[in-house]
């Protein structure tokens, strides 16, 4: 891509005034990241990993306008994101910056930390340095957005679970996109460090409202210690005029479990990368996803599960519902390295097309370098079952409602795997509302 497109970001980077509270190693990391971004530019469709997704509309709009001085959001917007039954700690962000007035400081078990990344960088840099920017990769042109996020890294969330800590209530991270303003950009960085034997559910919820465009470019790094279990839910409910790019990288130790539930309902263009690297034996990765798109929405899901060590398992289920002229992409890569004997990997991608003009590109990529493994994958594309629709209608259910019933049923296979009841309830409510509206939701 052309140099002109990176120029505004390079200029803004030069004008950036590093905070004195930040550790100096962070400055070095940002410098390295902006260099990479300048070198890569925005990802081109010539890259295999971006071949179905053009980010021209992102590259040519100069995101980065100044946000309004006052945060325009209220606690109602937070409740929209997480639902009324959410009783865990909530860190809320407006335009990527921590908003304490929207957050709730529920008590957490001894030693557990959930605070803004800026606070953590100032207060406990030593907890962060070993992980930040080291789990996610940003050294290849495919990762240009991660490099960009790293270059402007300043705020976001830091969640730390000490050895054996069990957090029953989910932890909520809410990112609100701007109502108005000059094409703002929100680049939150989330670092989750779960020490051995710890357990928690963490929800990242993105919402916004139009009609103006804004860009979210989020990066999440998750370190899952030995025997730890992390459930990560990402609820992407951006406004229909938003752009949403996100990358999650989990790094798993021995006997750990990492489950990702990625729900993608909004944004004009959404690109979600979810990667799990299994670095030690006996670990389990579950990658689930639901994407709903209509009109001219484009949603691209890339996943990668890297089985580097033996006796590990992965299960993956991505389901898409595509209406209008929407375009969906599923690209699921599974790598089984020579060391990773006795790997069990299972992948499925099922898609429901609600119109003749909707499109899906479904691409499994299995790279198996060990011989004693069990891997399966399958992909389906179909329309709603007419006889099922007739059955429902013959009982008095309207055609519109019958279609919604069927779509919800299709989606429920993904949402019911979310363990936390209040989170699952909110996800179901938003999925239902999204399907009924036939367009992305907006916060009121």
């Amino acid at each position: 891509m052309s140099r002109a497109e990176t120029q505004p970001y390079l200029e803004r980077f030069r004008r950036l005034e590093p905070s004195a509270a930040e550790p100096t190693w962070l400055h070095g990391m940002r410098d390295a990241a902006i260099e990479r971004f300048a070198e890569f530019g925005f990802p081109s469709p010539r890259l295999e990993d971006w071949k179905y997704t053009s980010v021209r509309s992102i590259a040519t709009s100069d995101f980065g306008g100044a946000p309004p001085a006052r945060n325009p959001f209220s606690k109602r917007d937070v409740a929209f994101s997480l639902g009324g039954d959410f009783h865990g700690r909530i860190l809320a962000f407006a335009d990527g910056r921590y908003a304490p007035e929207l957050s709730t400081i529920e008590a957490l078990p001894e030693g557990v930390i959930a605070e803004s990344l800026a606070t953590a960088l100032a207060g406990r840099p030593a907890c962060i340095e070993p992980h930040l920017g080291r789990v996610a990769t940003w050294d290849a042109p495919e990762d240009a957005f991660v490099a960009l996020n790293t270059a402007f890294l300043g705020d976001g969330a830091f969640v730390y679970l000490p050895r054996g800590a069990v957090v029953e209530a989910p932890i909520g991270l809410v990112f609100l996109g701007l109502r108005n303003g000059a094409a703002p950009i929100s680049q939150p960085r989330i670092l989750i460090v779960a020490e051995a034997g710890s357990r928690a559910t963490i929800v990242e919820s993105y919402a916004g409202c139009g009609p103006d465009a804004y860009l979210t470019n989020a990066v999440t790094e998750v370190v899952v210690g030995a025997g730890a279990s992390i459930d990560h839910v990402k609820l992407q409910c951006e406004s229909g005029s938003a752009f949403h790019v996100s990358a999650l990288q989990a790094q798993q130790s021995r006997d750990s479990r990492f489950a990702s539930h990625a729900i993608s309902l909004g944004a004009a263009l959404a690109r979600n990368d979810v990667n799990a690297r299994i670095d030690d034996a006996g670990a389990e990765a579950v990658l689930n996803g639901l994407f709903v798109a209509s009109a001219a929405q484009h949603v691209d899901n890339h996943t990668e599960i890297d089985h580097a060590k033996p006796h590990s398992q992965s299960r993956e289920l991505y389901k898409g519902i595509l209406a209008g002229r929407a375009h969906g992409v599923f690209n699921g890569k599974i790598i089984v390295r020579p060391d990773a004997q006795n790997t069990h990997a299972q992948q499925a991608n099922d898609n429901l097309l609600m119109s003749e003009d909707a499109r899906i590109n479904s691409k499994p990529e299995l790279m198996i370098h060990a011989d004693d493994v069990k891997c399966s994958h399958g992909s389906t594309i179909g329309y709603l079952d007419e006889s099922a629709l007739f059955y429902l209608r013959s009982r008095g259910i309207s055609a519109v409602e019958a279609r919604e019933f069927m779509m919800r049923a299709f989606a429920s296979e993904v949402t019911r795997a979310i363990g936390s009841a209040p989170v699952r309830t909110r996800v179901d409510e938003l999925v239902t509302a999204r399907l009924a509206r036939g367009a992305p939701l907006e916060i009121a």
Partner: protein
Amino acid sequence: MLKITNLHAKVEGREILKGLDLEVRPGEVHAVMGPNGSGKSTLANVIAGREDYEVTGGEILYRGENLAGLSPEDRARDGIFLAFQYPVEIPGVSNMYFLKAAKNAILRHRGEDELDAVDFLEFARRKLKLVEMNEELANRPINEGFSGGEKKRNEIFQMAVLEPTLCVLDETDSGLDIDALRVVASGVNALRSPERAMLLITHYQRLLEYIVPDFVHVLSDGRIVRSGGKELALELEEKGYAWIEEHAAA
């Protein structure tokens, strides 16, 4: 209540119903019998408004109103119910939840108050007893993993809940063992009333021992070729459909 005149219908371009006439009055139970492929299910689906069955001639009047152009849901709300020969499985859609939505759509249409979750459950439980169906089964996704007999029971349960005016039962007896048949039949009999009419579609005479019809019609090659009282069913059983077909040809 139901008056079908010279009905012609096509499925995938092929004419299946070729001039069918039938009249059913309130309170009556009519049996429609006929060999496989004679058009029984086609008739049932056309009455219920299935869109891939094209009516090419004649008309169906229901309570004086021409059904042409009316959607399946409008027909259901007006009181038409079809118990399917092959009820579909719909994974992920809860049977009870969907039935509550259906019941309330019908109540709304009639200008009556809707049932809330508690009232509906109580109402539905009474109907479950009628078909000796347990609540666990009723709460599962629609017909998912149901045996053939359980699916048929579920159809009658739904019929009992929706309280239709015209019940069309398409081979509700097929695939039922004798005990299930007895249960289903007593469920149907309990729903007989002076305001309600029933069209029992069946291939065998057996069902009619349990649900005694007022009239029996024989359908052959898309037409009613004979009508009579309940004794016609016995005659048919004895002499076989070939007898009717010869007769019709003659």
